[in-house]
C-alpha cells in the first residue's frame, strides 16, 4: 500500500499552486462565484485558455487530441487544487462530453471537437434533464426525428445549466419512439445558436442561473450524433462511472476559514475554539474531509489501473457532498446569529461566504444523481442486492 503522491505528482501540485497564485484574479473568483461555474464570463474564458495551454484541462487525454497522456491521478490533483482555490473545474466539454467522444465517437468527431475542447476554446452544456425525466433519465422524450441527413428536434429540456453561455448542447434525445425507453435514446452535439432554440432563465436559491431550453423544429446534422443511434443511454450510464466525482477541497477551504473564525472570535471571555463542543465538531469535520480525500483519490487509483469505478464513484460523490452540507451546518452553528449575514453586510463574518455556501450546498446532493440514487447504486453494484 502507498497513500502518498509520487515525486512527479508532488511537483505537479507545487506547479499548479504556483499557477493558481499567478493566474487567478479576485475578479475571476468573483465572476465564478456569481455565475456558479467557471465559464460563461469574460474572465473565465481567458483563464480556461491559459489552463488549456498547459494541457491541464484534459491531461489524461492522448497527445493527438490535445492531452498530455498523463495519469488520471494528475487530473484529480489539478481539479482538487482548483477546487481549493475556489474554482472547481466542472467543464461539461472536458469532463463529460469529451471523454465520451474519446471513447465512443467517430474519428471525424474526435478531430472536430477534442482539440478545441482541450485548448479551452469551446464549451458544452449538459442537455439531459427534462421536466418528467430527472432521476429517471430514460424517461426523457425530446423528439429527434430522422430526416435522412439530419434530425428534426422538438421538445423541452430543464435545469440545463450554462446553456445561455456555452457553445454547444450535449443533448440526449429520443430517436426511437417505440419499445423500451432506454433503447431509444441518442446523443448529439447541437450548436446552441441553431434557429428554433429558445433559452429561458430559471434562478436558483443560490442566486445562480440555470435554464429551460425549448426546441422548436431545430435541425441537427446527422454527423453530430455521437456513436450509434439508440445506444445513447448505454453511453450515458457508462460515462457516469467515469465522470462522477466531487473534488472535496472546495469545502476544505471553507472549513479552514471556519476554523480561523473559531480561533479568532472571543465568546464569554475565551476563543470559540476552546469550547469543547465546538472542538469536537470541527475535529469531526476535519476527519470527514480526510475520509473524502481517500475516497476521491481511490477513484483516480482505479481509473489508472484501467478499471471502472462504479459503486466507488457513487460512494465518493454521495459522501463528499453530504460532508459539504455538514460543514456548512457546523459552520452555521459556530457563527450563530452572524451566520445569516450576507455578503455586503459590514458585520458579515467570512465576508458572507458561509451564508452563501449554506444555500448553494443544498443542490450538491441532488444534481448528478441524488444521494438516494447513489445509495441504490452502492447497494446494487457494491453488494449485489437485487433491483426493486
Amino acid at each position: 500500500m502507498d497513500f502518498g503522491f509520487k515525486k512527479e505528482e508532488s511537483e505537479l501540485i507545487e506547479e499548479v499552486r504556483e499557477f493558481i497564485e499567478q493566474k487567478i484574479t479576485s475578479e475571476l473568483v468573483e465572476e465564478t462565484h456569481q455565475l456558479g461555474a467557471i465559464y460563461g464570463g469574460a474572465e473565465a474564458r481567458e483563464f480556461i485558455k491559459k489552463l488549456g495551454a498547459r494541457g491541464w484541462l484534459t491531461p489524461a487525454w492522448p497527445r493527438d487530441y490535445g492531452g498530455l497522456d498523463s495519469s488520471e491521478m494528475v487530473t484529480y490533483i489539478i481539479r482538487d487544487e482548483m477546487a481549493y482555490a475556489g474554482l472547481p473545474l466542472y467543464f461539461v466539454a472536458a469532463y463529460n462530453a469529451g471523454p465520451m467522444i474519446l471513447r465512443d465517437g467517430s474519428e471525424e468527431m474526435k478531430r472536430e471537437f477534442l482539440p478545441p475542447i482541450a485548448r479551452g476554446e469551446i464549451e458544452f452544456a449538459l442537455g439531459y434533464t427534462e421536466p418528467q425525466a430527472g432521476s429517471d433519465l430514460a424517461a426523457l422524450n425530446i423528439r429527434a426525428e430522422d430526416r435522412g441527413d439530419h434530425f428534426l428536434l422538438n421538445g423541452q429540456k430543464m435545469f440545463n445549466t450554462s446553456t445561455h453561455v456555452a457553445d454547444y448542447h450535449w443533448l440526449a434525445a429520443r430517436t426511437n419512439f417505440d419499445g423500451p425507453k432506454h433503447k431509444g435514446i441518442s446523443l448529439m452535439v447541437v450548436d446552441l445558436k441553431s434557429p428554433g432554440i429558445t433559452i429561458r432563465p430559471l434562478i436558483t436559491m443560490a442566486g445562480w442561473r440555470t435554464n429551460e431550453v425549448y426546441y422548436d423544429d431545430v435541425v441537427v446534422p446527422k454527423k453530430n450524433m455521437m456513436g450509434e443511434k439508440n445506444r445513447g443511454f448505454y453511453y450515458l450510464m457508462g460515462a457516469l462511472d467515469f465522470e462522477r466525482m466531487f473534488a472535496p477541497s472546495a469545502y476544505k477551504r471553507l472549513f479552514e476559514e471556519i476554523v480561523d473564525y473559531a480561533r479568532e472570535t472571543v465568546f464569554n471571555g475565551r476563543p470559540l475554539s476552546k469550547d469543547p463542543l465546538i472542538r469536537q465538531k470541527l475535529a469531526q469535520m476535519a476527519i470527514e474531509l480526510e475520509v473524502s480525500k481517500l475516497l476521491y483519490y481511490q477513484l483516480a487509483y482505479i481509473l489508472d489501473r484501467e478499471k471502472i469505478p462504479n459503486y466507488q464513484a457513487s460512494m465518493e460523490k454521495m459522501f463528499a457532498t453530504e460532508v459539504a452540507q455538514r460543514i456548512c451546518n457546523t459552520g452555521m452553528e459556530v457563527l450563530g446569529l452572524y451566520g445569516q449575514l450576507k455578503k455586503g453586510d459590514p458585520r458579515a463574518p467570512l465576508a458572507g461566504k458561509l451564508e452563501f455556501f449554506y444555500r448553494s450546498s443544498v443542490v450538491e446532493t441532488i444534481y448528478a444523481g441524488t444521494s438516494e440514487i447513489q445509495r441504490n447504486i452502492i447497494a446494487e453494484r457494491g453488494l449485489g442486492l437485487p433491483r426493486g
Partner: protein
Amino acid sequence: MQKEVWAFQGDNRMDYDLNEEQQILRDSARSFLAKQCPGTFVREMAEDEKGYTSELWRKMVELGWMGILFPEQYGGYEGSFLDLAVLLYEMGYVCLPGPYFSTVVHGGITLLEAGSEIQKGEILPKVASGEEILTLAWTESGGSYAPQEISLKADLHHDHYVLTGTKLFVPDAHVAGKIICVARTQEPAGDYEEGVSLFIVERENPGLTVHVHSTLAGDKQCEVEFNQVQVPGENLLGELHMGWPVLQKVLQKASVAKCAQMIGGGQRAIDLTVPYLKEREQFGRPVGSFQAVKHHCANILTLLDTSKFMTFQAAWRISEGLSFEKEASMCKAWVSDSYRQLVALAHQVMGGIGFMEEHDLQLYFKQAKTSELAFGDARFHRELVAQQLGL
C-alpha cells in the same frame, strides 16, 4: 460475498492494495482462523476462565504470529506495521478471543518503544516463542486514558520501587506473566504528563491481586490491585518520569491496530448479513430489494470502506516511519463511530434472527462497543485531532 476493496493489483504509484506477501498472509490467516475459531469457540472462551486455549496459542506461535513485528534478533519476523494490521484484520474477522492483542500490541509495542536492549533481549524472544504473555496496566478508576487519571504511585526505596494503587480494564492480566504498569513517580506540578513512569511487574509478585471484570463481550479485562508491590529498579521501562511520551505513541499505534481488528469485524458483519438479504423473502420478494433496506446497506458499505481506508492509511504511515499522530487519531475516531453504526444497521436489516444468541452477528455488536472504548473512543480522539489542528 462482497469483493473486498483491495482487489486491484498495485504498482509503485498511490496504492490502495495489499502487496503479494500480505495477500498470502491474509489468505492463510483467513483459512486457518475459519477452522480454528468458529463462533462456538468464541462463545466458549467468553465463558472460559482463561479465555483462550494453549492448543490454539501454540499453533499461532508456529505460524510466527507472535513475533510478526519484532526484529529478527529477538526471534521475530521483522514484519511491518501493515503486516500486523493484515493479521489483526483477520483476527477481528473471527472475533478471536485470547491475549494476542495484549501480548503483541499492548506489551510488544510498549517494549519496542521504550525497552532497553537487555529488557527487549530478555522478554521479546519469549513472546515470539509463545512462553510469555504480556499486558499493559494503564487506566484507573477515572476510566480514561488521560494523564490526569494516573495516580497509582511508585516510590523509590533504595534499589527498588514500591507500587501502590489500583488499575482497571487491564486486558488479560489474569493470564499474563508480566504486566507493564503505568505509575506516577512524581506528584504533578501543573503538567500531568510529567512524572509518569513505566514498570515491568511480574504477575506472581506478592501484593498483586487480579480480579476479572464481567464484561459485555466476555473478553477478559481485569482489576489489578497493587498493594506495596516491590519492583526492582532495573524493571523501570524507559526513562524515569518520562513515560508519557512513550504512552502517547503506544496509544496511537495501538489505536490503529485496534481499528484493523474492527474493520475485519465490519467485513464479517457484512458477510453475515448481505447473502441473507438476497434470500430472505417478505411480501413475495427478497428483503434486499426494498429501497429502505438497500439504503441501510449502502451506508454499511460506506462505513466499512471508509474505515478501511482510514485504517490502512494510518498503518501505512506508521510502517513508512512518517508522522502518524493526526491520522491515527482521525482513524480511531472515525472507525469507533463507524463500526458501531455499521453493526447496528446490520442488526436492523437482519431483523429478529440477528438478535438470537446463536447468530454470530451479536458477537460483532459486542466487539464493536468493546473496541470503540479501548484506547479512547471517538470523542477522546476528536479532542486529540482538535489539538493537532491547533485549536
